[in-house]
C-alpha cells in the first residue's frame, strides 16, 4: 500500500510499450487512443467516399455495381458519424477536459477505458461486416424500415450490433464527462469561468444521454422485427413504417449538434488565442450553446417533411428549425467580433478556424432552405441535402477538428506540426472541399436524388459530377499531406509548454503533461486564468 498522496507503483508487467497502452486508465492516453483510432477509421471512410466519387465521375459508369455502391454509402455515412466525428470529439474531451478544469483525471478512469475499448470493437464489427454473408448493410446510415427489415444477409444485423455497442460506449463516456465537469473543477472555476470548450462538452454529453436510449430502442425494435418475428415496422402486419423514423431522428438530429457543438467549442478556444483578444460575449456563446442543445431536441421531424405529417406539425418543426438559426447566428457574429481589432496570427490552427467560419456559414444558410418545408419538398433526399450536410459535417466538424489538432498538437506531444505543410494542406483541403461539395447543391436542384449509383447524361449532371469528383481528389491530396505532416511530427520542432500564449489551464502544465497533470493549480479568477497570470507577472515586472 502506497502512502497517502503518492502514486501507487506500476507493476512491472504493465510497463511495456504496448501493454502500458492496453491497460492505461490515464485520460490523456485514452484521449490519444480515441484520436488515433478514429483517425484510422477516417482513412477507411475516406477511401469509401473516394470510391463513391469515382463511380459518379461519369454518367452510366459501372466502376462499382449497385449493390456494392449501396453498401459503400451506408458504411461511409455510419463510419464518419459514429466512428470518426463523435469519437474524435470524445478524444479531445478526454484529453482536454480534466486539464482545462484543473483536475487530475476523469471522474471514472476505468469506465473511461471501457468506453474506448467498446468504441474500438464496435468499429471493428462495423467494418468487418463487409465480409458477412450477403455483405454489409445497404439501407443507408438511416436504415429505414421496412426496407431494412426485408434486407437479406447479416450485414444489417451486424450494423445494428455495432451501433448498439457504440451507443453503450458513447453513453458511458457522456456520463463520465458530465460527472467530471460537475465535480472536479478546480478552486475558483465557477460555471462562468469554464472554458467554452468545456461548456460545449457539457451540452454534448447531456444531449448524448438524452437521445442515445431512443436510438437503442429503435434499433432493438428493428432487430426484433428482423430476427424475432415481431412487426413493429411491418405495415402488412399492422406495424408502422414511419415510427422508426421518429425514433431515429429524435436521436439523429441532436446527433448533428452533438457533432458540431464541441467543434464550436474548439473554435471558441482557437479564435481568441490567435486574435490575442478575449472571446467577444463569453456568456452569449455559452448560453447559445445551451439554447442550441435545447432546441435540437425539438426539430427532429424536419427530416420527415415528405412523410405527409399533418400541416401543423410540419409548421411546428419548420419554426423550431428556424429558431435554432438564431443562437447559431449569435455564435458566428460573436466569433467575427472577436476578430475585430485583434492581432490576428495566421497559424494553421487559425486558418482552419477561419475556414470553418466561412464554410459553416454556407452550411447554415442552406439549412434555412431545407427548414422551409415546401422548399424541402423539392430538395429533400437530393444532392442538395448531401451538399448541406457535408458543409456542416466536413466544413464544420472536420475543419474544426483540424483546427483543434494543430492547436493542441504541441500540448499532446510537445512538438509542433509543420506549419508550412500545414498551410499547403489547408489550402488543398479548403479549395478541394468547396469544389467537391458546392456543385452538389446544383446537382440536387437539377433533380439528382442521393443514394443512386449512377445517373443519365442530361442537363449539367455530368459536368457538375465530374467537377465534384476532381474536387474530392484535391481534398484527398490535402489530407495525405496532413497525414505526412503527422508522421513527420515525430521529429517536429520542440516548443515550450505554451507556444501560442494561450489562456486556459491546460497550458499551465508541461507539454505533454505528467501523468498526474499538475503539480499546482492556480486559483481561477476568470475564464482566462493564464491571461490573468501573465498580466500579474507583467505588473510585477517579471515578464
Amino acid at each position: 500500500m502506497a502512502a497517502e498522496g503518492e502514486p501507487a507503483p506500476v507493476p512491472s508487467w504493465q510497463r511495456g510499450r504496448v501493454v502500458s497502452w492496453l491497460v492505461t486508465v490515464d485520460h490523456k492516453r485514452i484521449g490519444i487512443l480515441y484520436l488515433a483510432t478514429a483517425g484510422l477509421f477516417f482513412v477507411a471512410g475516406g477511401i469509401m467516399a473516394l470510391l463513391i466519387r469515382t463511380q459518379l465521375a461519369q454518367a452510366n459508369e459501372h466502376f462499382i455495381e449497385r449493390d456494392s455502391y449501396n453498401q459503400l454509402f451506408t458504411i461511409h455515412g455510419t463510419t464518419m458519424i459514429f466512428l470518426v466525428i463523435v469519437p474524435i470529439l470524445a478524444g479531445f474531451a478526454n484529453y482536454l477536459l480534466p486539464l482545462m478544469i484543473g483536475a487530475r483525471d476523469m471522474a471514472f478512469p476505468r469506465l473511461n477505458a471501457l468506453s474506448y475499448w467498446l468504441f474500438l470493437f464496435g468499429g471493428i464489427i462495423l467494418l468487418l461486416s463487409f465480409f458477412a454473408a450477403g455483405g454489409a448493410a445497404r439501407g443507408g446510415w438511416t436504415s429505414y424500415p421496412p426496407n431494412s427489415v426485408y434486407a437479406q444477409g447479416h450485414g444489417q444485423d451486424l450494423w445494428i450490433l455495432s451501433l448498439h455497442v457504440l451507443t453503450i460506449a458513447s453513453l458511458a463516456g457522456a456520463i463520465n464527462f458530465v460527472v467530471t465537469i460537475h465535480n472536479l473543477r478546480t478552486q475558483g472555476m465557477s460555471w462562468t469561468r469554464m472554458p467554452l470548450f468545456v461548456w460545449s462538452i457539457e451540452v454534448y454529453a447531456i444531449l448524448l444521454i438524452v437521445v442515445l436510449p431512443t436510438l437503442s430502442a429503435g434499433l432493438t425494435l428493428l432487430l426484433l422485427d428482423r430476427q424475432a418475428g415481431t412487426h413493429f415496422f411491418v405495415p402488412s402486419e399492422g406495424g408502422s413504417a414511419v415510427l422508426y423514423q421518429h425514433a431515429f431522428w429524435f436521436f439523429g438530429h441532436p446527433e448533428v449538434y452533438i457533432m458540431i457543438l464541441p467543434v464550436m467549442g474548439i473554435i471558441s478556444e482557437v479564435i481568441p488565442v490567435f486574435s490575442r483578444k478575449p472571446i467577444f460575449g463569453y456568456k452569449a456563446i455559452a448560453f447559445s450553446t445551451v439554447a442550441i442543445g435545447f432546441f435540437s431536441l425539438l426539430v427532429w421531424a424536419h427530416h420527415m417533411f415528405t412523410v405527409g405529417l399533418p400541416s401543423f406539425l410540419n409548421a411546428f418543426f419548420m419554426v423550431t428549425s428556424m429558431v435554432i438559426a438564431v443562437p447559431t447566428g449569435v455564435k458566428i457574429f460573436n466569433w467575427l467580433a472577436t476578430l475585430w481589432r485583434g492581432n490576428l496570427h495566421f497559424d494553421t490552427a487559425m486558418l482552419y478556424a477561419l475556414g470553418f467560419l466561412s464554410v459553416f456559414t454556407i452550411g447554415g444558410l442552406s439549412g434555412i432552405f431545407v427548414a422551409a418545408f415546401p422548399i424541402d419538398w423539392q430538395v429533400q433526399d437530393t444532392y442538395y441535402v448531401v451538399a448541406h450536410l457535408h458543409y456542416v459535417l466536413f466544413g464544420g466538424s472536420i475543419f474544426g477538428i483540424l483546427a483543434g489538432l494543430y492547436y493542441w498538437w504541441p500540448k499532446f506531444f510537445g512538438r509542433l506540426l509543420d506549419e508550412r505543410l500545414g498551410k499547403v494542406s489547408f489550402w488543398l483541403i479548403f479549395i478541394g472541399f468547396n469544389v467537391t461539395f458546392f456543385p452538389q447543391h446544383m446537382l440536387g436542384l437539377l433533380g439528382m436524388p442521393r443514394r443512386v449509383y449512377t445517373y443519365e447524361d442530361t442537363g449539367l449532371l455530368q459536368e457538375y459530377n465530374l467537377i465534384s469528383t476532381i474536387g474530392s481528389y484535391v481534398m484527398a491530396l490535402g489530407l495525405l499531406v496532413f497525414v505526412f505532416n503527422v508522421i513527420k511530427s515525430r521529429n517536429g520542432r520542440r516548443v515550450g509548454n505554451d507556444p501560442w500564449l494561450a489562456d486556459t489551464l491546460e497550458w499551465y502544465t508541461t507539454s505533454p503533461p505528467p501523468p498526474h497533470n499538475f503539480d499546482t493549480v492556480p486559483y481561477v479568477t476568470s475564464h482566462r486564468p493564464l491571461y490573468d497570470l501573465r498580466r500579474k507577472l507583467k505588473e510585477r515586472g517579471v515578464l
Partner: protein
Amino acid sequence: MRRFLAVAVFAVLSALALTGVALAGNGGIAPVEPASPNAQRINDSYVWVSIFTGAIFLLVQGSLLYFIFRYRRRRRARFEDGAQIHGNTNLELAWTVAPFLVLVAIGAFVFWKLPGIQNVPAADAAGGRVDVEVKGYRYYWNFTYPNGVIAVDRLRAPVGQNVKLEVTAPAFDVIHSWWIPALGGKFDAIPGTTNQTWFNAEAPGIYRGQCAELCGIQHTAMKAEVEAMPRAEFEAWLDKERRAQEAGTSTLGKETFTGACAKCHGLAGEGDIGPALAGNSLVNDANAVEQVVRNGRGAMPPIGKDWGNRQMLALTDFLKEGGLNGG
C-alpha cells in the same frame, strides 16, 4: 498574404464562371424550371429565401475577409494584445433580434405561399379534376385512373387541368418517394398510408423524375414520367385505353413487363441481376408466373402481390404470346 489574395481571386473567378454556366440554362441555381403552379410557388419561396441568405452570406464573408485583411498581425509579436473587448450588449442584442426578424419574414412568405402549394384544388373547381392513384412498388410505379385504366411508369395527364395524386405503396412493400421536379415537391409513398398531392401541367411535354427514397437494389432504376397532352387527346386516349384493357388487347402486358420485370431480368428477358427469362419454359405457364409474381422467390420481392386480374392476365398473356421475342 499574396498567396491568400491569389486564391481569393481564383475562387471568385471560378465561382463567376460556374454561375455563368449555370445561368445559361438555369443549371441548378434554382429548382428545375417549374411547369405547374405548385412548383412555381415553391420556386417563388426559394427565390425569396435566397434574397435574405444571399445578403447574410455577403455580410458574413465580407466582414470575415475585411477583418482578416485589416487586423492581420503585420509585424506585431504574439504577446502584443489586441483590443481587450469582452463584448457589447447592444450589439449582441442587435444580432440576436435581426436574424429573428429575417426568419419571421421568411416564415411569413412561406406560410403565405403554402396553401397554393399544398392544398389539392377541389374536384368541382374550374376545369374539373382527374384523380389518379400512384402506387410505388419495388421498383416501378403503378397508376390507376378513375375508370380503371392501369399504367406503369408513365403517367398520362391533361394539360391545364388539375390532377390529384393519391400516393401510396402496398402494405407488403417499402417506402418510395414520388417526385417529378417540374411538377412540384416530393411525397413519400408509404405502405399503409396515403399522401395527397397535385399538379396542373402548363404545357404538353414529358416531365421526368425518379424515386427519391432509397428502396433497395434497383432504386436508381425506379424512374417515372408524366406525359402531359392536350385535354381532348388525353380523354380520347383514356377512353380508348379503357376499351382495350377491358378487351385484353392493350399494351398493358408489355408496359408491365418493361416496368416491373425488365429492370432485373432484362428488356428481352436476357437476365441481369435476376435470372434470364428468355428460354425458360415457365414463362409460358400463366399459373407459374402468377405464383412467382404474387409471392416472390429468393431475392425477388412479391412485386405483384395485389395486382388485379386485369394486370396479371395482361402480363401472362404477353409472356405466353412470345412477348420476349418481340412477338
